[in-house]
């Protein structure tokens, strides 16, 4: 489904990705992990065509994505920072994104109820709190029924109830047989929901496999410590 081949990217002098090879052809939840600045978001944005790699190729469902834009109809993406045009109301923004997608049958009503957003529908986006904006962001992401879902730090700013609802939502989508890519720094969240881990270190894929495999590789019984041991090894 996703085939990333030898992606290189540098920003100025800073080499972020140095030959990423990643093939994801199964369904399920993939957690993209790595220390700050390891290139998680850059990788995700390369798949979305927002960052243009210096070298390498990306294929989705067998088609090269370079210079294309139609393929984004089949991706639901949750950006890291939720910031919207301040003069629009929540409802207008939702309608607008629906209008921009060719896949019109969106499931926004259920999600609005799920995140209790009804009281905010007619409020301007500039007056919403960070957490509420993130909920709007989640509605915009999950209201379409695409085979590939990419979530960049989905838990930022959410209260505990919204957090639980998000996990339910992710599991529902997984049950529908979708592929979901998630980046997060909250290890308990990652451990709870993800099927496979993709660990990026120094611009390369350091590890790809399940959590038990990671634990046995690092000789740690605890997931958080397993991750930490990779990091301390790399820092040393």
């Amino acid at each position, binding site marked *: 489904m996703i085939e990333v081949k030898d992606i290189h990217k540098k920003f100025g002098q800073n080499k972020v990705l140095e030959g990423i090879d990643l093939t994801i052809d199964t369904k399920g939840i993939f957690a993209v992990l790595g220390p700050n600045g390891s290139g998680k978001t850059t990788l995700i944005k390369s798949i*979305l065509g927002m960052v243009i790699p210096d070298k390498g190729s990306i294929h989705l469902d067998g088609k090269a994505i370079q210079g294309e834009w*139609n393929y984004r109809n089949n991706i639901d993406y949750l950006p890291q920072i939720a910031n919207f*045009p301040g*003069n629009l109301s929540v409802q207008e923004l939702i309608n607008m*994104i629906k209008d921009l997608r060719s896949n019109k049958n969106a499931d926004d009503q259920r999600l609005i109820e799920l995140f209790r957003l009804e009281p905010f529908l007619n409020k301007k986006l500039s007056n919403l709190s960070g957490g509420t904006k993130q909920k709007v962001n989640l509605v915009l992401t999950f209201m379409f029924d695409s085979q590939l879902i990419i979530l960049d730090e989905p838990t930022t700013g959410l209260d505990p109830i919204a957090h639980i609802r998000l996990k339910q939502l992710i599991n529902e989508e997984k049950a529908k047989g979708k592929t979901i890519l998630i980046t997060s720094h909250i290890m308990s969240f990652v451990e709870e929901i993800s099927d496979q881990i993709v660990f990026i270190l120094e611009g390369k894929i350091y590890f790809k496999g399940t959590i038990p495999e990671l634990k046995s590789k690092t000789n740690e019984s605890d997931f958080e410590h397993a991750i930490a041991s990779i990091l301390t090894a790399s820092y040393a």
Partner: protein
Amino acid sequence: MLKILKYSFYDLIRSRWSYVYFLFYLLMGFVLLFLNNDLSKAVITLMNIIIVLVPLIGTIFGIMYYYNSKEFTELLLAQPIKRSSIFMGQYLGVALSLSMSLVIGLGIPFFVYGINTSVAIWDFGLLLVSGSMLTLIFTSLAFVIALKNENKIKGFGYAILLWLFMAVIYDGLFLMSLMFFEDYPLDKFSLIATLLNPVDLSRVLILLKLDISALLGYTGAVFQQFFGTRLGFFLSLFMLTVWFIVPTFIMQRIAMKKDF
């Protein structure tokens, strides 16, 4: 692209600043007409204000809009839309809403005064056209600057410098070089120098139309002498169009290669 344009435009015409800008022109139009009591004079006064103010507002609004909607642009970039459509849509959204404030804001007082029955209507129309052209030009220049500079402060700085250079410094340098090289024939130099600055260009354009030789200044006079009123008029109009197309093209080129 039209969808993006629609939403940017809709977003902008509801912003407070669009109204401030609109009300400013409305007020200025009324005040000038009542103080002057003469349509042609009011058009000339307006011209002097517009050719300085419109570029300033176009650059500032363009750069502000780009930086303020950066995250939103990222959201759009993840949607199935062509990159070029996003930036063209946003750019035209800003430029058209600014032009609308100008045209309607000045249109109302002049119509109330009765411009539609006066011969000055074409002069006034040209004033609005060149004002809109300047908006398009300077907004696209602002977008180019904003796309090139991630740092807002730098972006703002360059934008203000651009305006200052085009609206103020350029003329100063021009005059100084005329004085400095007064022993040489300067017709061609001054012609080219005028063509290279959209602010001067629109001034010449309007003055050629108004046919007031006293106000033409050196460049205007050379322009008139060299091309005649008619050819000069169309040439300056053509150059203004070039001034709008080239930065828009550059803007697209940068946007296609940029990482977000």
